[in-house]
């Protein structure tokens, strides 16, 4: 009888913690690892060592922006890959709906359609981004990256910045 009661209370606590955790990660903020070097040097500069081993950055993803999908230039966002819904990518927004963007691939300017955005990695030489798959719907965005939270020597806010070469490309 005693063990049953203990088991029940454990299951109850476990369930409550799970529900609260899901609520917080969906509505407020979550932590996600960064893989790959497409956002280097802002994220994963490739030189971070923790106890002699190179390590990936962990970032804080803020979810409040999903209430109205308002973003500004230079926001770093997490979004579902348009070609694979199970995969998530981190890139920087460089153009918002209604703006014109220059593409090297087509040697042409392109208008970002309504409800879409143009995303690019900071490390343009090794980044799969809007330059290859075009503008993405804002509905795919899952959150905005605000801080690096791990490893300790990299903790800090991520600044919003416009890539310098936008003007020259236009």
């Amino acid at each position, binding site marked *: 009888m005693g063990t049953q009661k203990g088991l029940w209370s454990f299951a109850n606590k476990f369930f*409550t913690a799970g*529900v*609260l955790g*899901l*609520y917080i990660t*969906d*509505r407020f903020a979550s932590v996600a690892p960064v893989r790959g070097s497409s956002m280097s040097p802002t994220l994963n500069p490739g030189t971070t060592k923790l106890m002699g081993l190179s390590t990936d950055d962990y970032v804080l993803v803020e979810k409040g922006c999903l209430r*109205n*999908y308002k973003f500004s230039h230079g926001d770093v966002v997490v*979004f*579902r*890959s*348009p*070609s*694979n*819904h*199970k995969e998530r990518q981190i890139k920087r927004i460089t153009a918002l709906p209604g703006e014109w963007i220059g593409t090297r691939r087509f040697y042409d300017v392109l208008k970002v*359609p*309504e*409800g*879409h955005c143009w995303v690019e990695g900071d490390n343009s030489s090794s980044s799969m981004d809007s330059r290859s798959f075009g503008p*993405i*719907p*804002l*509905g*795919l*965005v899952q959150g905005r990256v605000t801080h690096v939270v791990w490893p300790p020597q990299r903790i800090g806010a991520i600044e919003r910045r416009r890539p310098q070469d936008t003007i020259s490309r236009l």
Partner: protein
Amino acid sequence: MRQWRRVANEAMQFSVSTAKFIALLHVTDSYLFSPILAHGSSMLPTFNFSGDVVLAERLSHRFGRVVPGDVVMVRAPDDPNMMVGKRVLGMEGDKVTFVDPASIRQYRKTTVVPKGHVWIQGDNTKESFDSRSYGPVPYGLIQGRAFFRVWPPNGFGFVDD
């Protein structure tokens, strides 16, 4: 002093249980079922013009179980704050033949749905803004599958595929 402590304790307990309740509501709504008020003419005759309440289940799209014929709730590609209900007609790699409603000469076009995308169309082809106009949409925009109609009473039951 003792009375204050009791009041504070009660307030604490109340707010904790309220937070738990809100969290449970959120999890049920975004991982199990959520009610949707369907309106507009694009899904006639499956849904009425206004006021149909439909339950959408929010599990199968997470496991990639959406199949052609399902009525899905999709975040509109041209407005992320809006949800639209459409029917899936093609998955990635499928060949779709359609008539672009905007073209003057109603030629039939054929296209292949690219990787990770779905082709969605409204049941009322005359008044629907869908993949025929804006092309295939990424699977990641799917938010749920409409499966059960609650209102009106004469339509009570499962939504047919």
